[in-house]
């Protein structure tokens, strides 16, 4: 596989985003192979430690995806997810870590287009960031 293709982990909520991703496939949209999706029941299940560990293990990018606010299959899970994302984003910012390596997007079950759009855009963004230094870092 070509080497400038970044490695992105996507934690997708089962009800909206994962279904949205399926739909993108069904509609034969072009999604970069950079993204490896992992299905969780709710974006609120995404433990900050998953994101952290993925980052420290060398993921060039981590995408958190869930239902739009108000549409959460479990009522409010995505609000929890949002706070957790904001928390990590702030920690990264304060410590001068590359905060763009982590992102949160709302993608509904019908938004195949949006799924394609954000994954492609983010892949480009991460390409610009270059490879995640944690990949080569010995002293972690």
């Amino acid at each position, binding site marked *: 596989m070509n080497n400038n293709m970044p490695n992105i982990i996507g934690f997708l909520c089962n009800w909206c985003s994962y279904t949205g991703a399926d739909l993108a496939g069904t509609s034969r949209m072009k999604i970069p192979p950079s993204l490896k999706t992992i299905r969780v029941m709710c974006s609120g299940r995404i433990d900050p*430690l998953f994101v*952290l560990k993925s980052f420290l293990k060398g993921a060039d990018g981590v995408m958190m995806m869930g239902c739009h*606010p108000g549409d959460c299959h479990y009522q409010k899970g*995505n609000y929890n997810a949002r706070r957790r994302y904001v928390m990590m984003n702030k920690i*990264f910012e304060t*410590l*001068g*870590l590359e905060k763009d390596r982590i992102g949160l997007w709302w993608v509904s079950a019908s938004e195949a287009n949006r799924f394609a759009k954000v994954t492609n855009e983010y892949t480009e963004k991460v390409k610009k960031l270059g490879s995640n230094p944690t990949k080569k870092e010995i*002293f972690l």
Partner: protein
Amino acid sequence: MAKAIRIKNNVEEGLFEFLKSLLEKEKIKGVFTLKKMDEEGAASYSLITSVDEFKNAVPLFPYMPVNAGKELSNFTLLGKTEEPIAAVLRPCELRAFVELAKRAQGDFENILTVSLSCGGVLDLNTMGEKNQEDLISKYWDSVKKAEVSPNTRETCQFCENFLPLNADITVATVGNKDLDKEFTLFFNTPNAEEFAKEASGSSVSAEIESNEINEFKKKREELKEKYFKETETDENGLKSLINIFAPCLGCHGCSHVCPICYCTLCEFDSKTHEYPTPSLSSDLQKKGGLKVPSGNLLFHLGRMTHMAVSCVSCGMCSDVCPVNIPVATVFSKVGASLQKEFDYFPGKDVEEPAPQGTYKEDEFTKIGEQ
């Protein structure tokens, strides 16, 4: 306005006598405060119930062997104390106890909280050392002059929350020149007022805030900027961060003494986060080498996601770090920005839910929509 009583006595003795009298008259059944352990000058927190034992109490001893908030939580973990006690805490310890009570890890009921305008405490590793006496007298001088004592811990030097938020009784120390002749007690709550009459002094009209206090605050804020700058991470934050934490032994002492790290058993000590041996060959292939034990940064960053937003900047973590990592400075810094982001002030109000346990539908609305 809080009831203020001026007592004609050295602040250390005065407070000692006041608490002693409460104990003697059985207004309270115990005092939770610092107590001398030996002649070398080691002190430790104790719950003192007998007037006789109280002779060794040193309520204003400028050391923090442990965060008293954490210990009060251990004391009231299974429920409130039936008998009333008084507890002498520094503002950050009080804030810690509030955060713990918030998480059902402690109970304020029947505890008369006595705190002070705090000049900070000395480095723990000077406790019981030869020069202790000297350090302490220097310390009090700077407290009187409302100067930042250079012997106090870094965390204290940049602490601008040195006024207790919700203490029943506050001892005014910072910026009071005649502390060895007289001092003022502020009785802030109805609960406290009934103890006021036990204080042998004259009622005066006074406010804890003063120009000295504000000046003091300014000085500390300047130092805060300075110290935060020192842990500044350059554009490649990762490297700098690694360098800051490079000496880390993984002893996790920082989390053991942290009042906010209230977990019985820490997730990061668990098998879940141990290194999976099968990953070794691929990791070595990628990196050419690997620090062992690994997972150093995961621990510190992970711990941050758990507690930094509630960090009360008590400095215990820096104090116990055997390799002088400025843990508290880094965590305070991250804490400050998180607390700003979530508009949260740890230790202000027991009723205010911790940011992890709540959310607002109409916050951060731009996020996720881009």
